[in-house]
């Protein structure tokens, strides 16, 4: 616990002006500033458990009388314990509705990104792009359950370096305009966007574009209603264990069949020599 020490002067609140209040404490308040901190710790992962939003099977009380058919109430009465909740002193709880969690904010997001125009190329070497040529045409249901006649097409080739195109946009009168609410809207800028490749340690340049779309927030397609509980074994574990399927577990010398089993993976004599970088099978040339 932190301890602050402060000194307050009574004189600071005493009136020293001439008059009847001289020497009287007329100030109301001493003010002391202090700073509060919170020491935090990450509890780690939580576990989803199925939650029901059905009416409860056996209410705790019926008409203000403990409901003995409720297993807990029956057990408590049997043990001689009395609680307020057995008499239903609380107003009925309001069940949560899953839609309470949804927050589609319907804000248009615009950002700079790399061009995807090449994904809309036709098989035509001289004229690869054509306005309203539907490279993809698929009806789908959006996150709100609306039916969308989705198309992926170029809608504006008229302006050089300002090509407009869309992916999964609804094929209607507002396709390609700022009023398009479905799918992704692109405008190529003709400039270059940089992308630093950490692995190759080089800077890559790609044709740049503006992407524009309506944000969907949390909705039925990316949320689920479940109770979060904490399993103690995961206390402080902040991500689930990852399965590395490529890790080979060496079973040691007790596994006498190991070498024979691995032979099934060998396809040629060269492969046998090079297997596991030549460290597994000890090939000795026979000298005559």
């Amino acid at each position: 616990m932190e301890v602050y020490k402060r000194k307050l002067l009574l004189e600071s609140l005493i009136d020293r002006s001439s008059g009847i209040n001289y020497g009287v404490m007329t100030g109301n308040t001493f003010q002391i500033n202090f700073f509060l901190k919170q020491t935090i710790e990450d509890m780690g992962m939580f576990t989803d458990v199925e939650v029901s939003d059905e009416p409860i099977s056996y209410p705790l009380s019926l008409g203000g009388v403990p409901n003995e058919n409720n297993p807990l109430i029956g057990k408590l009465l049997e043990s001689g314990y009395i609680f307020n909740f057995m008499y239903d002193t609380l107003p009925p709880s309001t069940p949560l509705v899953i839609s309470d969690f949804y927050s589609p904010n319907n804000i248009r997001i615009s950002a700079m990104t790399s061009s995807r125009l090449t994904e809309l190329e036709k098989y035509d070497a001289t004229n690869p792009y054509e306005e309203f040529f539907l490279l993809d045409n698929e009806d789908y249901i959006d996150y709100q359950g609306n039916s969308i006649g989705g198309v992926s097409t170029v809608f504006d080739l008229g302006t050089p370096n300002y090509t407009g195109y869309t992916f999964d946009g609804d094929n209607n009168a507002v396709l390609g305009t700022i009023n398009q609410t479905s799918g992704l809207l692109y405008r190529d800028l003709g400039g270059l966007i940089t992308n630093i490749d950490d692995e190759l340690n080089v800077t890559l340049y790609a044709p740049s574009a503006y992407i524009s779309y309506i944000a969907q927030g949390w909705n039925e397609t990316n949320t689920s209603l479940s109770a979060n509980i904490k399993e103690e074994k995961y206390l402080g574990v902040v991500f689930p264990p990852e399965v590395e399927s490529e890790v080979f577990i060496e079973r040691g010398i007790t596994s006498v069949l190991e070498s024979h089993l691995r032979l099934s993976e060998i396809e040629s004599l060269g492969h046998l020599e090079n297997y596991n970088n030549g460290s597994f099978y000890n090939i000795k040339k026979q000298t005559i």
Partner: protein
Amino acid sequence: MSGTYGTVRPADVLPQDMEIFVHYTPNRGVTSNVTLNKLDPTSIISQSVNPNGNGIELFSGLYTLNLLSNQFSKKGYYTIIIKPIEIRTKIADCGVLSTLPDIRGLILSPADTDSAFRNKFENGNLVGYRVEYLDSDGKKIPNFFTIITSNNKAEAVNQNVTNTNQKSIRYIFNTSAELTFCTVTPNSAPSIKPNALPFIGGSNQSVIITNTFFNPIMIEIEVVEHDIETLAWGIFGNQTKSVEDGIYTIYNFNNDIYKQFNLFEIKDQFQGKPLFEVRELRTGIDFTKQFNNITNI
């Protein structure tokens, strides 16, 4: 990238989640028991507006204690404790989940809690709270606490125990339920004694639940009549001595009368020989001795 992160943050706890206690003693030599009085944090704690924000966002961490002068008017030592508020309730039951029988928890009821805290029993609102336990005599069990790691509304079901015809109470989560199922830590069996479970509380046991929104602090306030400033008035401030009536006046740096004294001599009544020179604090102030009045003559 250092791969490290800090774990201390400025708290943004609301005053209603705090408790404030105060103890007064006139001096350090007092040996009587410490008695604590409770202050209302919502009326004496205020927060500042964050200048980076939109005018309503509060500045994290910085709080102001507004101590009323009628409560802190005595010279002496005031010890102020600011700590998370206590929620007192009873454990309705202890049990396990129906779907995960190895998950143990406490079943609490908002109906057995002060109505001001009932919203804390909504799903997830008690996560991070600390549970401390009282014994049957009402004494707090020292050095024993658990931390709530999750809480969800739950209802009891009577369920078959595996491979037998025996039934026992298990809990399922239900958003319509009134009770809340809290998992706490520690609750796992130690590996060397797999059958020995840590005690996490029993049915009908009284518990104290406190938030961990901030680290408690103590403020010791020494209320004094004099400090360096008032001494400086006496040494460096303006002074006047009225020769005719012997009124000696000391002024503060605003030239207000701070102290006033009568100066006089006590003489031998027969020979008139001076015996003492006296400086006596005046109780009634002679306001004709205002510094500006005198110096503007």
